């Protein structure tokens, strides 16, 4: 392992020496001395391949159990924030100068989707430095962009690796790429491949044309489901502890001190309804998205929220043994909380635009603020009544 002298070129580091271009290890990062041992050979690599302009890593097209476990961690935690592969050129199978070149992001999940779709295909994979972000989001930010693509094509000397002049860029990278600029700068013509990497074999089989189906992004149940943990997570971490603290304080506070038993027994139905709001806004609404009436996410979340609150608060043991003012506060606040959390799912959805979300926010934010303020005011009035201050 220690003798290996290749690395997919990460030329992020400024080149400090004049590079003797044309040497056998062109893909070597320019900052590193030639012949420096590679410390970490990725587990998903299966050897090396001569690109004609240096040696590059050959990657496996089979995802290991470890890869799959990492993918799960990406979906449920901050693990994904540091899940990257080194940018540069890679080989799949035994590509030659006529093989296709597929462009990808350096988020390993994106890279894995691509390589697992390329089994039985000999191809080059050009990984851009997108700071570990997936193709679509990075394209939106511009890190999956023309500038970076042009730079990578030049850095790996793609013109020496292949004799044709076509690169296949994932369609969802298009918001960051200007195909005509790339052509002008590098001579490589961009073909936009299908939205889903899994459609690549069919795309190739149909003569590099994508059907309307391959071109269109959908948002099926399974995709919505996969995205919900990262909705529940922040809601539980960011909002719920503060909410619980408020509720326990309100119910436990007496002129003579804080009573923990009162805090718990009095606050319990509210704490449950808080959980119900998170569950409804972050899980149920995304899951049932196409089936809940209206298009605005805020409205969908509110409808799901009021229904959940009505159902849960009518369950035995969870009936609110509260004064009217508390019941009113609950029916006011919890559907709004669910609505707010559901609105956050616009960020995960595949079809919401900025103008639409802005419109929703303009209408809903004043309601959230007014609703929350009224909720707190009603709790205070309830305490004052209880203490017979008023």
């Amino acid at each position, binding site marked *: 392992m220690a003798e290996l002298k290749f690395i997919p070129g990460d030329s992020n580091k400024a080149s400090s020496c004049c590079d003797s271009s044309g040497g056998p290890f062109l893909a070597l990062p320019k900052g590193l001395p030639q012949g420096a041992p590679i410390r970490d050979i990725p587990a998903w690599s299966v050897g090396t391949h001569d690109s004609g302009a240096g040696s590059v890593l050959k990657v496996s097209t089979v995802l290991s159990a470890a890869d799959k476990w990492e993918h799960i961690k990406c979906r449920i935690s901050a693990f994904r924030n540091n899940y990257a592969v080194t940018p540069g050129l890679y080989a799949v199978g035994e590509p030659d100068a006529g093989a296709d070149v597929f462009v990808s992001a350096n988020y390993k999940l994106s890279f894995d989707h691509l390589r697992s779709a390329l089994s039985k295909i000999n191809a080059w994979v050009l990984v851009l430095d997108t700071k570990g*972000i997936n193709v679509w989001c990075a394209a939106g930010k511009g890190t999956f962009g023309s500038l970076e693509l042009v730079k990578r094509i030049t850095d790996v000397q793609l013109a020496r690796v292949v004799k044709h002049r076509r690169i296949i860029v994932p369609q969802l990278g*298009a918001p960051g790429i200007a195909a005509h600029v790339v052509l002008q700068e590098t001579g490589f013509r961009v073909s936009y491949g299908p939205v889903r990497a899994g459609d690549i074999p069919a795309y190739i089989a149909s003569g590099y044309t994508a059907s309307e189906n391959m071109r269109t992004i959908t948002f099926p149940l399974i995709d919505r489901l996969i995205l919900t943990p990262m909705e529940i997570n922040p809601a539980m971490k960011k909002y719920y502890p503060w909410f619980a603290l408020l509720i326990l304080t309100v119910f436990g506070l007496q002129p003579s001190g804080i009573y923990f038993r009162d805090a718990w027994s009095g606050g319990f139905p509210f704490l449950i309804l808080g959980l119900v709001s998170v569950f409804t806004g972050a899980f149920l609404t995304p899951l049932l998205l196409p089936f809940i009436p209206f298009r605005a996410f805020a409205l969908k979340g509110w409808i799901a929220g009021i229904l959940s609150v009505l159902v849960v608060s009518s369950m035995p043991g969870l009936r609110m043994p509260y004064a009217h003012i508390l019941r009113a506060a609950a029916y006011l606040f919890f559907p709004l909380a669910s609505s707010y959390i559901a609105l956050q799912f616009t960020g995960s959805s595949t079809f919401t635009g900025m103008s639409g979300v802005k*419109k929703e926010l303009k209408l809903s934010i004043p309601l959230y603020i007014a609703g929350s303020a009224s909720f707190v005011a009603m709790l205070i009035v309830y305490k004052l009544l209880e203490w017979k201050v008023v």
Partner: protein
Amino acid sequence: MKYLTRVASLAYDPEKCVGCGRCAEVCPHGVFAIRDKKAAISDRDRCMECSACANNCAVAALSVDRGVGCAAALINSMISGGEPSCDCSAKNGSACC
């Protein structure tokens, strides 16, 4: 699934269009159709303002007010006064999506 209607900022100047078909190729929501060697907007309300079409239009016949359709990003930008971006929850420029 469709989002709010009549909000998309997509603007198209058919005069400039040379009918290359890139917009129809890159649009992930089938907003464009190519008719008589010219692009036509066939379903404007599906536009999510990703600007893939405008970016890939060599003759600048398309323009769109590009931005993230993400409530968290927009709320953050309202609070911080910055541009809405996906760098919402994490430190050091890492992102949520």
